[in-house]
Every structure is written in C-alpha cells, then in structure tokens.
C-alpha cells in the first residue's frame, strides 16, 4: 500500500519531481554523452593503432643500413624495426597540391589501412593513395598520378586507397591550424619505386616495441648502439597526429566533467528542497504511520524510495539518450578534423560511477530529510510542528524596514526562511548565465584567435615557402623583388632536465611582418641578445624568464643551452623565436625557409622549382573559420543546456513558492488583492534571484572559460575573451528565460480558488 502512496505522492508533486528528474536526466545525459564520446575516441584510436601496429618510436637520421635494423631488433624490448624514406612532393594536378610520399621497405609497422583496391605487398608496383585526397582530387583506382620532387618526376598507377595511423591529424604545413583534407595528402609505395635508386637512402626507422617497456631506456640504447651522431628519436607523444588527437580526446572528457557538475548540484538541491518540504508536510502522516505500528525502517525506506526511484530513472534515461545521441552531434565536425576507420562510442568506468553516485546522493538526501521527522516519538510528530522563532535580521531592525512595501517585506522574509530553496534558484541562474558566458566566450575567443594570428602577429598577405632547391642567392633575390622578410622555421626539440617537448623555432631576418606580444598581450620587441620562448611552451616546460632551456634543431646534433629572456604569446606555433643575429651568434647558419610579403605574387610563382608553396593568408583565415562550425555546435549545445537549466530551476522555484503559498495567495485574493498585484509580488522574488544569479554568474562564467581555454592542446594558446556584446547576450538570455518562466507561472494564479482560504489547514 505504501507503494501506492509513493505513486500518488509523485503525481501530486509532479512538477518538483519532474524537475529533479530532468536535472538528473540532463546531468547524466551530458556527462555520459561526452564521456562515451571522449572515451570512444580513445578506444577507436587505440583499436586503429593496434590493428595497424603504429610505430612506438621514430628514429630520424642520415641513412640507415640493414646492419642498423639488426642492431635495433637485437635490443631487448624491441619487437620489430623497419626503414622508410619520407619526402614532400607536389602533384602534377590543378593547384599543385602537396603530397607526402613514403617509400617503405615492408609493411609491418605503421601499416596501411586499406579502404579499397588491391592489398599492398612489398613486391607490388604502383601507389597507395590517401583516400580523402583521392576523393578531393577526383582520382580513383587505376588512374595514374605524377608527383614532382626536386625536379624528379614519379609517375605511378593508383592501386589502392588507404588511410594511415600516422595521419589521423595531418596539416599541410606547420603554420596551418586546421586541416583541409582533400587539398593535400599522402601516399605510400615500395622503396623499389624510387626512380633514381642510387640516390635512395632510408632516412627514417620505425620501431615497434614490446608492451610495457621503458621507452627512455630503448631510446638511450638506440643512441648508444647506432653509429651516427645526428639521430633524433621521437615517440608517439611527440608526433603531431597522435598528440593532437589525444589532446582532443582529453578536452572532450574534461568538458564532460565540468558541465554536468552544475546539473547534478541542482538535482541534489532540488531533492533537498522537495523532500524536506514533502516530509514536513507529511509530518502528521509519518506520526500516524508510526502510531499504527510501522517500523522506522519501513517508513525510512518508503521516503528513500522517492529519491532512489527518481534519480535512478532520470539517470538511466539520461545516460541512454546521452550515449546514443550526443556523440552524433560531434561526429561530422570530428570527421572533418581527424581520420579514423571507425568511430566508436563507449562509456568509461566514470560513467558508471556517475550514475551510481547520482542515485546514491539522491537516496541519501531523501534519507536525511525523513530522519528529521522520525526522530521524535509519534505523540510529538502527530502535532503540527512548532515554528522556529526567527530572530529579526539587521535589515528588519533598521528604520528603513518600515518604509519598505509589503511585497518587499514578504519576499525578503520568504527568502530568509527558505534559504536552501533560494540557494537552489540562485545556483540555477548562475549555471544558466555561466553556460551562456562560456558559450559566447568560446566563440569570441576563437574568432579572436583568427584575427590575433593573422591580424596582429602575422601581418603579411602571402607566405612563400622555399623548396630545398632554392639557394641563398636566389632567396635574397626573391626577398628584394617582393620587399619581403626572410624567416627560418624549423622543428626543434626542447629540454628542461628530463622533460622533452617538440616545438618550432622561428628565426627572423630584417623585416616587420611578425610581431610579438607579452603575456598581457602588449607589444614587445625581440631582444637583441637572447631567445624568446612562447608562453604556452614555457608553461608546458614549467619554466619562466631567467631560466635556462636546452634545444636543438631536429636533424642536427648540436644542443644549445639558452637563457629565456622574454616570453611571448602565440596561438599556434609553440617554441622559440629570435633574431637572425642572435641565431648566428649561437654559431648557426641562417637558412631561410620562407618569405613573408605584402606584394601579390605572380600566379605561376608556385610552378618554380625553387618554390614549394605559396600561401595566401586569406585562404588560411578561411580554413580557420571552418573550425568555427565545430564551435557553433558547441555553442548551440551549451546555450540549449543553459536555457533548459534556467527554465527548469526557476520554474521549480516558482512552483515551490506557489504551492507553499496557495493559502496565503487565496487569502490575499479574498482581502481584495488583484491577480496582477499578486503576480507582481511573486515575480519580485524570481527577479531578485535572477539578478543575484547573473551578478555571480558572469565572473564565474569567465573563470570557467579561462579553465576551458587552458585545457586546450599543448600547441594552442587560446586567449579567453568575452566581448561586451556577449555579456549582454548572456544577461539578456538569462532574463529572457526568467521572463518565460514568469509567464508560465502567472497563469497559475488565476487557478487558485479563494474558497480554499476558508477551509481548515490540511
């Protein structure tokens, strides 16, 4: 029979229970959805990496022999090693797209993942081409493709279309920020296909190690065993593809952690208010049940089942919907940025813990709520509760009090007497405002990044990238012709004690196309006699101005220890920057890799052998704007969540006030107050709560954004920024939610029957 009471109580208090249900539902929807998506990224990539046996170490050097392979394979912990040559070519197609070619010896480590066509074998001729590139360039199996490398032409028949585990994330050049697959690509072919066999060298070794071996030990062993002094050994974490995807996965998971906390907090506050109200309303019922001989345990169990049932049903449904649908929202955008054979969705143990924690806390709160009423003997519980004497607050004692009108007094005391309920309302509005600030702020920050990168830091229109064939003299000629600035950009490795990071070095010749900003984003000039370290890299290495960092250019052996003179902020390229003079003082030869200019290049400039590519900065900007679409999805989800949160919490708050005040409202009606006046009184509290929530929510939202921006990948430095307009939208949005709720609630006042006021207290 008690179960029947449970059902009827749930029906009678349906609004409150629905709102608790919704909070549990939404909290777990977002949590499980993002967790399953993020964790799914992990499992999908792991099974991809396992199936293709992605290399654990990459060894770069001048040329590797069979003897080197033998030595490395003999090391304990190494399973297999194979050689490869990687070169950058341009395809003889419209726009001369960039194609990275890999000449491979076997296909045992970092294996090709065949999408269509013939299976690769080391004896087969032809090329296995990047599937997305083939699609983008309208190429299919059986077509031939010609690629140019240092004046050499390589013509091959396309035998198969593939994807490759080292190209999950792939950029055409270091300066780009977002991939644009199809406009550039990669290909794999047998080393026998290299046209000039006597010039062929294997410049790279892929090493597959056994599970759970210490990579540092193997790295050291390789360095000591191979007789070459310019080896660079990198592991998966230092590879752009692997680390970018890993960071993306982490970002999704950490987002999944932060947002649902707000919802779950509100679900708990909701349960606290609803359950304490219900148990204190049913105080006499509880006394009666006890007097009838129900045990304490049985009554406790009865009240616990409210919290248990609601949170269990809400949580499970939220988890199901989140698991099934939320990952799909990200899928399209993720597929634009990353290439994986399958996109799995899988929950981690965190999801199960969250579902259980939600149920546990809700049940616990219900338990505590009814214990309060069960403490006393039935004789006491059968009588209505004696109200607490509340001491007047200082505002009530002040002279001002008597001059306040009724609705202010009424609402003030109502708030003071229902602190938890008010707290729930304020937390809800804070959450609503916070999510909106965060949503609009994310958008602002990324929009800002485009104009920051290509408006403030790099102020040229065109970047001309030289090929290896360009000599120093012709580079200077180009620089004169285009009145440009020569720069050298190279990959470097940085080290502080045992911590190693890969980054890039930018060396600047005379010119004024690259600018630097300090951590407060004000302009600085590069110092004449020292190196400058990017802010994000300094954070990653855990050092500051005045500390020393060791670095070397990838492919060269000389390590240099430099004092960090300046820190600068850079959105994309993390590493060090210096003037040509400083660079040469460190006994390096300046060898320009690119030219920055504001003059428009001739259309056929990229046909020159000496030029690898001509980048139009506006085009890069557009590529970056593409990444905004992903952001818009996020913004949409966040705003939807904010609105739902606000509506549910404020409506619940309104209904709670309303239900508790039915008798008072009816009395006011009898006394001659009009519905409009009563509406005004009730809305005032809603308005106060909204204003308080907004005031607290704005700075918290900003802080939230700061945390969100700093959890981005190691290579990107996103400056959190929120425009005044975005703040206005957030405030306006929250008020709109509040007004909507007021409108929903105001209809209920008319439904109150005055005659109820004359009836006895239930």
């Amino acid at each position: 029979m008690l179960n029947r009471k449970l059902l009827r109580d749930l029906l009678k208090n349906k609004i409150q229970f629905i709102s608790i249900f919704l909070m549990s539902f939404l909290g777990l929807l977002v949590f499980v959805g993002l967790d399953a998506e993020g964790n799914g990224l992990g499992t999908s990539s792991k099974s991809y990496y396992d199936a293709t046996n992605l290399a654990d170490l990459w060894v770069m050097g001048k040329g590797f022999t069979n003897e080197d392979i033998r030595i490395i394979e003999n090391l304990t912990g190494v399973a297999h090693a194979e050689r490869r040559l990687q070169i950058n070519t341009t395809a003889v197609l419209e726009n001369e797209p960039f194609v990275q070619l890999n000449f491979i010896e076997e296909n045992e480590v970092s294996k090709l993942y065949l999408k269509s066509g013939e299976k690769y074998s080391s004896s087969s001729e032809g090329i296995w081409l990047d599937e997305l590139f083939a699609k983008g360039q309208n190429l299919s199996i059986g077509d031939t493709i010609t690629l140019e490398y240092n004046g050499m032409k390589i013509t091959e028949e396309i035998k198969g279309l593939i994807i490759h585990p080292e190209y999950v994330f792939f950029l055409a050049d270091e300066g780009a920020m977002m991939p644009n697959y199809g406009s550039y690509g990669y290909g794999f072919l047998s080393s026998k296909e290299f046209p000039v066999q006597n010039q062929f060298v294997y410049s790279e070794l892929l090493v597959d190690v056994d599970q759970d071996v210490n990579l540092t030990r193997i790295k050291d062993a390789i360095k000591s065993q191979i007789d070459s002094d310019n080896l660079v050994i990198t592991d998966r974490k230092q590879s752009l593809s692997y680390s970018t995807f890993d960071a993306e996965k982490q970002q999704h998971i950490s987002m999944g952690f932060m947002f649902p906390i707000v919802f779950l907090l509100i679900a708990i506050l909701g349960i606290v208010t609803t359950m304490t109200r219900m148990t204190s309303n049913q105080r006499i019922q509880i006394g009666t049940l006890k007097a009838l001989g129900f045990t304490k345990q049985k009554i406790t169990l009865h009240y616990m089942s409210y919290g248990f049932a609601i949170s269990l049903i809400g949580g499970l449904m939220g988890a199901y919907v989140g698991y099934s649908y939320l990952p799909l929202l990200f899928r399209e955008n993720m597929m634009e940025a990353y290439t994986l054979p399958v996109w799995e969705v899988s929950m981690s143990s965190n999801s199960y813990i969250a579902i259980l924690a939600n149920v546990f806390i809700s049940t616990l709160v219900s338990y505590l709520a009814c214990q309060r009423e069960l403490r006393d003997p039935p004789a006491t519980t059968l009588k209505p509760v004696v109200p607490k004497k509340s001491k007047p607050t200082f505002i009530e004692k002040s002279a001002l009090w008597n001059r306040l009108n009724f609705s202010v007094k009424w609402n003030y005391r109502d708030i003071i007497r229902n602190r938890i309920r008010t707290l729930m309302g304020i937390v809800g509005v804070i959450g609503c405002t916070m999510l909106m600030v965060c949503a609009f702020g994310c958008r602002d920050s990324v929009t800002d990044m485009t104009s920051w990168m290509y408006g403030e830091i790099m102020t040229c229109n065109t970047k001309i990238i030289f090929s290896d064939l360009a000599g120093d003299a012709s580079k200077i000629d180009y620089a004169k012709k285009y009145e440009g600035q020569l720069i050298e950009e190279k990959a470097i490795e940085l080290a502080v004690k045992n911590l190693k990071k890969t980054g890039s070095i930018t060396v600047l010749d005379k010119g004024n196309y690259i600018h630097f900003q300090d951590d407060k984003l004000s302009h600085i000039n590069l110092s004449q006699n020292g190196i400058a370290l990017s802010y994000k890299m300094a954070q990653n290495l855990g050092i500051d101005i005045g500390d020393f960092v060791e670095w070397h250019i990838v492919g060269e052996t000389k390590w240099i220890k430099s004092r960090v003179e300046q820190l600068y902020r850079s959105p994309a390229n993390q590493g060090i920057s210096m003037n040509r003079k400083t660079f040469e003082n460190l006994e390096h030869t300046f060898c320009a890799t690119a030219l920055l200019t504001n003059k428009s290049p001739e259309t056929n400039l990229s046909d020159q052998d000496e030029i690898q590519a001509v980048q139009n900065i506006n085009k890069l900007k557009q590529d970056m704007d593409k990444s905004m679409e992903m952001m818009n999805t996020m913004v949409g989800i966040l705003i939807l969540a904010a609105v739902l949160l606000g509506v549910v919490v404020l409506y619940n708050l309104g209904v709670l006030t309303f239900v508790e005040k039915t008798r008072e409202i009816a009395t006011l009606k009898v006394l001659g107050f009009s519905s409009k006046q009563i509406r005004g009184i009730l809305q005032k509290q809603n308005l106060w709560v909204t204003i308080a929530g907004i005031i607290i929510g704005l700075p918290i939202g900003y802080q939230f954004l700061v945390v969100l921006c700093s959890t981005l990948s190691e290579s990107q430095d996103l400056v959190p920024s929120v425009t005044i307009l975005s703040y206005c939208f957030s405030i306006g949005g929250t008020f709109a939610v509040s007004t909507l709720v007021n409108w929903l609630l105001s209809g209920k006042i008319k439904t109150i029957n005055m005659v109820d006021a004359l009836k006895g207290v239930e």
Partner: protein
Amino acid sequence: MAEPIIEFKEVAKSYQRGDRIFYALRHVNLTIHEGEMVVILGPSGAGKSTLLNLLGGMDTATEGSIIFEGVDITKYNDNQLTQYRAKNVGVVFQFYNLIPTLTAYENVALMKEIEENTLDPKKCMEAVGLGEHFHQFPAQMSGGEQQRTSIARALAKNPKLLLCDEPTGALDTETGRGVLELLQKMSSESQHTVIMVTHNSSFADIANKVIRVKNGTVESITINQKPINANEVSW
C-alpha cells in the same frame, strides 16, 4: 430602520457534477440592513459557507441577483469583484489566515496596499485590544491574539460588510467569548454590518437577525428584539 445594504433575490448556486446538477443554494431571499449583527446558522453542508462566499464576492451566483447598495453584483466581472472585495468587504477567517511572514502590525498595515482610505493600523490594533503585540509574528501569538489581529486587519479597510466564518471555531470558550464581544461592539458602537456564519446555535442570541439555513435553502429569518450581551453566551 436603516436602508438595506445587501439584498438576495431568488439566488441559487449550482454545480455541474457529471450529468447531474447539484444545488448548493436555491430560492434564497434575504435582506440585511446597515449596522445589523447577523448570524447565519446551520449544520455543516447546509450551504452557509456558500452564502458567505456569495456575500463576500468570492464566488458568483448561478441564478438570481445580489443587490449591494442598489447595484447587482452578480453582473460584475473578475476585476469588479476584486474591487468590491477590496472596498466593501472585510473577512475574518476560522483559521485566521494571517500572512506568517509578516508581523501582527504588518498584517494590518498590509491593507494600505489595496485601499488608500484605510484606518490607522495602530488604532485598529488598539481597538481589538492588541496594543503590545505589534511586532510579533503569527506563530508567536496565541489563537485569540491571532484572531484579534485578523479582525483588526478586516477593520482596517473600514468595510461596509464584516464577514466572519466560524470566528471562534478554533478558540476555547473564554477566548471565543472575547472575540464575540468584540464583534458585537463593532456592530453596536461603530455601526459596522457584521455577518457571522456558525453552526453553534447558542450564538443566535447575540444577533439582531438570525438566518437559519438547511439543505441549501433559507429555513427561517428571525429578528431578535433584545439580543443578549456576548459575555453572557455559554456553549
């Protein structure tokens, strides 16, 4: 005899219950004059609460007309009824219905929010004998004190009709007698029209006019030439 303040002509109140029509009141005709002390008497379910609701403009009649100072209030819309309640009617409830978050004084002063020409709340408090309880919350007061506050609140509007629904229902005999005395004084000294609904027939003796209600109709209307003083009532 003074002018009639309110008049019921063939008033009926019915509810639709499925296919059946249920009458809470029918064929009610009565006249109440200014300054009268009226007791409406009847067992529970007789229709006396419905009668009080109609008098107070809290409910609308389905048939007939209710003439208040020459105007038929059955034709009023919601806003007009609200105005009618605000200007002309004071209600004293069985369970006081004070606003729990306002002090006694604030509950009385509340009336300023709806009517500009209210009496001074302090004077009203004094009139009901509540000088020293100005700043107590309802929960800190006894039942009698709460009911006095409720009466003071009703008086503050200086209403033409003072409607009381079982005003002593939740009080002990001694306290109840005090409340009755106060109501009688309102009628005799301040010329308020006091209408009290009760099931207690002993109260009939203190009224000028007794309306007995039974099964939704007025059974009898008697005029008491010599009402007794409320402190002589016993029950």
